[in-house]
């Protein structure tokens, strides 16, 4: 049978506030255990949560960036369950009236096409809602006198939980959506997006149905997906698992499963951990949150240029292809690096794009660094592309200069001077080398003139070698052809 997978994601993004959502304790990551957990975070008797204005602003920002409705009135509710890292016995969240409702996001991804070329696909993914809530603490299960240790520094850190519509049909689409949300929250500067530190986390709801059916199959929820790669692998595994279950006459059970990256499989969580009976009710400690039109409009004015708009501008302003523009705007820092490089290069838009996406990306990838850690900054790379554009450097020489810049040997111009890497474009000098090559190889000259065109490469090789790689290859080719046909 032909199966179709149906995927929806729930993304938790920690908001980049200084203080917690309901208290004045610091949200800084990595502090000594429990030094940032105050009486409100600990849920001690008699405390009152007071909502952080910045957390509300950030949620509104996200809503505006996803064409969502901002609820003029939203309500906090208590989600009741017991776990040691949740000191109050309930999590303050939003249930019936979330602050962000009904938006969407356009995603693009690559898929194998009919030919050898991959095809760029796109679709609009619905965002059901995004609500404000508090994070829980952390349980440490290493052995502490045979007990579990609890660090409540994270308790009360503001989160938005972004719930998508079940609009995705493959693991690849799900990852494209997750990446887009990740880029968006970083563009908006509402979340640092650090997945290792748990600032950006994802759960996936997955079900399978016969292709063409309208009715949704029974879904499972996957937890513990803390990297883009794991999301893709876990979803792929889970789709296969569900298909196997159905094709062997079984039934998919609605359950929560954990992804185990070491064995690349998903396993059911024990049913005891799954008391999905949260008995939500409005939190009497918090009044309804009202945001008026002024509040929303003031935030709208502060929105930066968003990824989609930047991508369109890169296409029109720099003449980049949609794929290149998409790649270069996939992160705010990368886009900034690109624009600075273009400026430093004196407007070399395409050359700069290529050098960033090929040489620089390759070098960074090799050592596992991201663009913000690059030893070659935008000014340096722009200086290099400028010298390629004006003919000082050939592609080959430029790579040598790049390698030297990477090793910290300075700017392109300094390296060119220090190493004497200036390309030879002077016609007289090149003609001299050509004449010498022709004079020393009369037999090959005769063969070439008799029609053996392939020998051109032989002469180019000799001349390039004689110039120590510094002769301009285009010029050599051009002059050589002329001289050989004289």
């Amino acid at each position, binding site marked *: 049978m032909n199966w179709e997978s149906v995927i929806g994601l729930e993304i938790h993004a920690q908001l980049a506030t200084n203080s917690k959502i309901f208290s*004045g*304790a610091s949200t800084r990551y990595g502090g000594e255990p*429990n030094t940032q957990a105050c009486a409100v975070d600990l849920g001690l008797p008699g405390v009152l949560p007071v909502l952080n204005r910045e957390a509300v602003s950030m949620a509104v920002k996200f809503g505006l960036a996803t064409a969502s409705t901002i609820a003029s009135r939203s309500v906090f509710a208590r989600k009741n369950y017991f776990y040691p890292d949740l000191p109050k016995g309930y999590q303050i969240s939003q249930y019936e009236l979330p602050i962000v409702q009904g938006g969407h996001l356009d995603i693009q991804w690559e898929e194998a096409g009919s030919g050898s070329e991959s095809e760029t696909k796109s679709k609009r993914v619905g965002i059901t809602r995004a609500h404000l809530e508090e994070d829980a603490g952390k349980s440490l299960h290493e052995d*502490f006198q045979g007990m*579990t240790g*609890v660090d409540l520094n994270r308790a009360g850190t503001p989160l938005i939980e972004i719930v998508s519509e079940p609009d995705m049909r493959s693991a690849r689409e799900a990852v494209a959506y997750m990446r887009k949300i990740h880029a968006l929250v970083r563009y908006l500067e509402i979340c640092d997006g650090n997945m290792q530190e748990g600032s950006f986390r994802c759960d996936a709801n997955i079900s399978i149905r016969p292709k063409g059916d309208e009715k949704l199959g029974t879904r499972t929820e996957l937890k513990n997906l803390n990297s883009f790669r794991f999301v893709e692998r876990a979803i792929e595994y889970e789709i296969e698992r569900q298909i196997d279950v159905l094709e062997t006459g079984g039934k998919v059970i609605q359950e929560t499963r954990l992804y185990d990256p070491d064995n690349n499989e998903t396993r059911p969580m024990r049913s005891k951990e799954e008391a999905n009976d949260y008995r939500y009710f409005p939190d009497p400690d918090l009044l*309804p949150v009202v945001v008026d039109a002024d509040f929303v409009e003031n935030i709208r004015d502060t929105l930066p240029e968003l990824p989609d708009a930047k991508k369109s501008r890169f296409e029109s302003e720099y003449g980049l292809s949609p794929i290149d523009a998409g790649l270069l705007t996939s992160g705010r820092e990368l886009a900034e690096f690109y624009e600075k490089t273009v400026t430093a290069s004196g407007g070399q838009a395409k050359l700069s794009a290529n050098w960033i996406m090929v040489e620089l990306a390759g070098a960074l990838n090799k050592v596992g660094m991201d663009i913000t850690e690059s030893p070659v900054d935008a000014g340096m790379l722009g200086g290099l592309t400028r010298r390629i554009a004006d003919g000082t450097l050939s592609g080959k020489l430029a790579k040598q200069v790049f390698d030297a810049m990477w090793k910290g040997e300075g700017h392109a111009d300094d390296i060119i001077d220090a190493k004497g890497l200036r390309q030879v474009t002077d016609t007289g000098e090149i003609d001299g080398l050509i004449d010498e090559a022709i004079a020393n190889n009369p037999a090959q000259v005769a063969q070439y003139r008799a029609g053996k065109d392939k020998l051109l490469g032989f002469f180019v090789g000799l001349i390039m070698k004689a110039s120590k790689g510094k002769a301009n290859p285009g010029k050599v080719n051009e002059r050589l052809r002329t001289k050989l046909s004289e």
Partner: protein
Amino acid sequence: MDKADVEKIAHLARLAIDQKDIARYARDLSNILDLVKQMEKVETNEVIPMSHPLDATQRLRPDEITETNQREHFQKNAPLVDTGLYLVPKVIE
């Protein structure tokens, strides 16, 4: 509400209840639910659900760190601590 319902909600709320009281709880809670059922008959289409009895809206505070580290003070209340962590009976994942 029957005995099983009472036991379930008592467990969800981590309430220890006496077996001999369960029948009475079931009766009392059923009465409350009956009252709710009675109220459901009232036409409420025009009424905005009340999430809070006070006719006021949430005050927002500026995003400032106002709390200092009082771990030592708070952990005086804890039955067991180790290297700054609160200790609880083992939770196995």
